[in-house]
């Protein structure tokens, strides 16, 4: 049980020593990830395994003990993230042959923290791993790249803020429930809630804040776009797929069961205020994430906002507080891990070959990089939630659960976001892969096998989960069953739902789509042939853009693709910018800083300040 944590730690240490030898380090990285996956596979079903480390450290009058346990839900998260991590690890070997920095050792530490978070039995262990993940990811993002500092700093500040709020929550929870064990503290919190309602509500809100920061839920939705745009692409694939789920996991094991069992007054007979709080924040992230994704010109930023929207869907499923919604959310976690990893791997492949991530500067890569194109296509079909691939089933379950609970506003926002997803996904596809190939990319080749094979595996995974959702749903339902939820063990290809006669068989859906593809192929083969024209032919009206002082790229149709749509929503985003609010806090601190430095630089006020201090004492000692 412990070796699963020791292996990444030791690997991190060894690869730190041999950091100059890239081949060895990335090979070790792959081996280690393979071992973790194998070990996780062997841990399946052994839910009683625990490991306790007793310390002499005393807090709240009791000795602290740190523990790990094979929690079924933790296993579920850890296993599927390990699968995707292994695929990314294969990709990294090829991707990093020419890269400048070497992110492997710090990435291995993050994997250590990753497993620690999913396997922690008590809050202190959880917090230790959580904070470790926070600062290591700062170094992984910057990776010695000066340009990455601003985004990474933003992420770090938010992450430390979340850590602080979680520390307060954990310590209050520990002091009031007399335990740090996650499961026990949840039970006691439910029992004791009415005794100290204010404190426990504060605890829950502080926890929720920490988790929302890490999962980029509404008020904290900006960091992915800042971070994903600058980090090393292969690591970002891991971050956008696996790391953004760290906030979801504790929501699933702690917040959702607790809020579901609290005896709070209900609003409209549908749910209590906390449920609505989570739901509306989820809905806001889904809508805001979708809108912002449409307006991006950088492809990595676009998919960063798409992640925000997807985290919103997961929260919507949680907010329904029904078992179908819960299953749907957890299913969507895995779906999102797989599809986001696939999309980011294909983006990494594009960046690897072209060095460009602005979409209007790309185009037509479908002819040059067919496998990358196919992966991306599969990824966006899955992300849009179109049936033969994964992503459909989970959204379907979440919407059903919300409908059943009559949370109509949330359903509307989810449908809006899913529809909007078509807009930005299609736009990305068109801008990057379709259209015409710019002159400068005439010599671009498909990526080497080490990178194309992982992408093919990802395609296979998406199709597999899409057609046979049982590969995910079976372990999930078994894990939930082991945790004591009343669930039916899922079958291989059908998805049950909360309504009568709404069970669907994805096998049949797949056959229908396969027929559709055959028909489309026939139409392509026997239809009219296409005609090729030069790229800047049709929209500059004979003028040379250079003479007008503008770049030809700016006239590309994929620059400001949704301009009219953007103008429609601009007033909203002009006026309300959470991003600007958070940055201004940081800026204000930076403005005060020189003032304080000046205080220490000049000495005129030294004795004056001294006297003020003494005066304060005298006032405090006698008058107060």
């Amino acid at each position, binding site marked *: 049980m412990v070796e699963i944590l020791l292996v990444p730690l030791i690997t991190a240490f060894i690869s730190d020593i041999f950091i100059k030898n890239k081949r060895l380090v990335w090979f070790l990285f792959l081996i280690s990830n393979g071992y973790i996956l194998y070990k996780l596979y062997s841990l399946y079903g052994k839910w009683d395994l625990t490991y306790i480390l007793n310390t002499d450290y005393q807090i709240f009058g009791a000795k602290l003990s740190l523990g790990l346990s094979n929690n079924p839900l933790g296993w579920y998260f850890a296993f599927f993230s390990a699968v995707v991590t292994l695929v990314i690890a294969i990709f990294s070997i090829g991707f990093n042959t020419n890269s400048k920095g070497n992110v492997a050792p710090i990435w291995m530490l993050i994997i250590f923290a990753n497993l620690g978070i999913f396997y922690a039995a008590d809050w202190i262990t959880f917090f230790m791993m959580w904070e470790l993940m926070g600062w290591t990811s700062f170094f992984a993002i910057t990776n010695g*790249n000066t340009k990455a500092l601003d985004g990474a700093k933003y992420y770090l500040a938010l992450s430390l803020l979340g850590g602080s709020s979680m520390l307060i929550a954990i310590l209050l929870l520990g002091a009031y429930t007399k335990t740090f064990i996650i499961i026990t503290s949840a039970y006691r919190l439910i029992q004791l809630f009415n005794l100290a309602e204010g404190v426990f509500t504060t605890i829950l809100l502080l926890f929720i804040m920490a988790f929302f920061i890490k999962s980029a839920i509404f008020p904290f939705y900006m960091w992915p776009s800042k971070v994903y745009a600058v980090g090393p692409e292969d690591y970002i694939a891991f971050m956008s797929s696996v790391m953004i789920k760290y906030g979801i996991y504790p929501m699933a094991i702690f917040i959702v069961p607790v809020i579901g069992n609290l005896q709070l007054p209900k609003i409209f007979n549908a749910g209590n205020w906390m449920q609505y709080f989570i739901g509306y924040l989820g809905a806001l992230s889904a809508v805001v994430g979708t809108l912002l994704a449409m307006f991006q010109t950088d492809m990595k930023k676009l998919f960063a906002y798409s992640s925000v929207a997807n985290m919103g869907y997961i929260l919507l499923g949680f907010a329904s507080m029904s078992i179908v919604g819960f299953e749907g959310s957890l299913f969507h976690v895995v779906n999102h891990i797989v599809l986001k990893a696939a999309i980011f791997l294909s983006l990494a492949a594009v960046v690897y070959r072209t060095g460009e991530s602005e979409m209007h500067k790309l185009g037509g890569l479908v002819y040059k990089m067919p496998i990358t194109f196919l992966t991306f296509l599969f990824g966006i079909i899955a992300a849009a939630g179109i049936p033969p691939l994964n992503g459909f089933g989970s959204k379907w379950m979440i919407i059903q659960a919300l409908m059943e609970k009559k949370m109509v506003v949330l359903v509307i926002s989810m449908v809006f976001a899913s529809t909007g997803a078509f807009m930005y996904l299609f736009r990305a596809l068109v801008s990057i892969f379709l259209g015409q190939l710019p002159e400068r990319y005439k010599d671009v080749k498909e990526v080497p096998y080490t990178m194309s094979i992982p992408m093919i595996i990802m395609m296979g995974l998406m199709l597999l989960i899409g057609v046979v959702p049982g590969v995910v749903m079976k372990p999930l339902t078994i894990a939930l069953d082991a945790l004591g939820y009343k669930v039916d063990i899922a079958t291989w290809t059908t998805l049950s739902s909360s309504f009568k006669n709404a069970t669907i068989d994805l096998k049949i859906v797949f056959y229908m789509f396969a027929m559709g593809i055959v028909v489309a192929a026939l139409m392509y083969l026997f239809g009219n042939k296409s005609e090729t024209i030069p790229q800047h032919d049709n929209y500059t009206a004979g003028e040379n853009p250079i003479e007008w002082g503008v770049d030809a790229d700016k006239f590309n149709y994929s620059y400001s693709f949704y301009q009219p749509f953007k103008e429609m929503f601009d007033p909203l985003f002009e006026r309300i910018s959470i991003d600007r609010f958070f940055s201004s806090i940081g800026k204000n601190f930076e403005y005060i800083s020189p003032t304080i430095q000046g*205080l220490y630089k000049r000495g005129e*006020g030294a004795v004056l300040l001294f006297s003020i201090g003494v005066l304060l004492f005298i006032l*405090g000692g006698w008058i107060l």
Partner: protein
Amino acid sequence: MNSIVFLVVIPIIAAFLSLFLGKVNKLIAYIVTIFNLSFSIVVLVSGKIPFNVAIGGWRAPYGINFVVSDITIFFLLLINVAAVLSLTTIKEHMEYQFYAFYFILLAATNGMVLTGDIFNFYLFTELTTFAIGGLVAYKRDRLATGASLKYLILSSTASTFSLAAIGLIYKTLGTLNFADIASKISNLNKASLSLILILFISSMLVELKIFPFNIWVVKAYDASIPAVNLFLHGMVSTAGVYGAIRILLMVFSKNSIMLSQSSNIANILILLAFITVIISEIGALTEKNLIKVLAFSSMAQLGIFLFGISLGNYEALKGAFYIVISNYFAKFVMFIVAKNYSVIAGSRNYEDMKGLGRKYPGLAIAFTISALSLMGMPFFAGFWGKLSIVGNALLMDKIAIIGVIIILISSVIEGVYYLRISHTFFSDGNIQDTKLSRINCVLPIILAAVILIIGIYPNSIENIIWTMINEIQNTPEKYIQVILPLK
């Protein structure tokens, strides 16, 4: 164990001799410092702790006495280890003034920790002030002289206050002995106690670098040579911390409770503590001079320490000890790294140190570990301190909760500026072809490893800290009766 006076006497003799010895001074300095360190270790392992030495045979309440208890020996070791480690960073030739002042500083800081008499304590504090004033000014430029003067002015203002406090104590209680004061303090009326505390604490906060009294800190660090930075951090601050623990928690606390929550002094100390923390962290946020950043951050750490001891809770006090230990090691690492890197980069601006972390990764990693420890990240020593202090402060009254929130916010700021510096070390940069001997990297790595060990395995230090807290908890049996056995 009458020979304990050697710890003070030998450095003073050496200070006198150093005026005549010229080039041998360096050797003498090593010999004397290592003697002090090994003598402290001998005392530690001799098993005679606690014991009391009456100087000149004058028994306790009447004469001056040196006391060695668990807390004393712990701080004695910290100070002497700091002295040895700081000496190792001196590579170039130093003139006799430097060594003379250094020996005085060594004697004075050892004396501050050993003495059991409040007036004697005051004298040693004055001696420290005087020595540091000389050491800061050793660079002999405009900045150094200014910084030194500033420090001297503030310290002498402070010492006036403490002299007044001592006079008041003598007037009201008729004694100057720590143990005697501690046993009689409950007879004192509230107003006199408040006045004495106000006067004494305000003088002590100068050494503790707490906000309205710490205007000297940044300039003094910036103006002095690296070894003096380490003296200031490792010896003077540590002695100041000892003074705070001994005098606030053991001498001036009624009925062996710590500064109780009900008293306003404790509340004001909490207030000043978290103001110090937030002000120094914000000050460090945009500072480019690495030494100044470290100076700001050391004020913040002492602010957290003061917050911990003012809460009046033994677990929070334990956290404060962890903070002291973590800060002690971490700042050592950071000052040494700053020194080495600034020598290579030719400037103290950390932005000029780009890429040095790639060439000398050991130093940069040690710096990062220390920074993470100061931020209170888990797996590093500072985490256990933060956990204890925050956890216990949350269960206190409103002012403590506000303090916790402010301290956590400032730890976010601290994280941002420290990790930005670490990132700068590891980023691409043009490195000049300067050679840094690998030996310079060994010491920071060892100290960083200590931080890591304490962080991963808190048992290593937990029991030592509890022994010291035990002494504070049972002041009458463990301290007063050692000195005044008749009672």
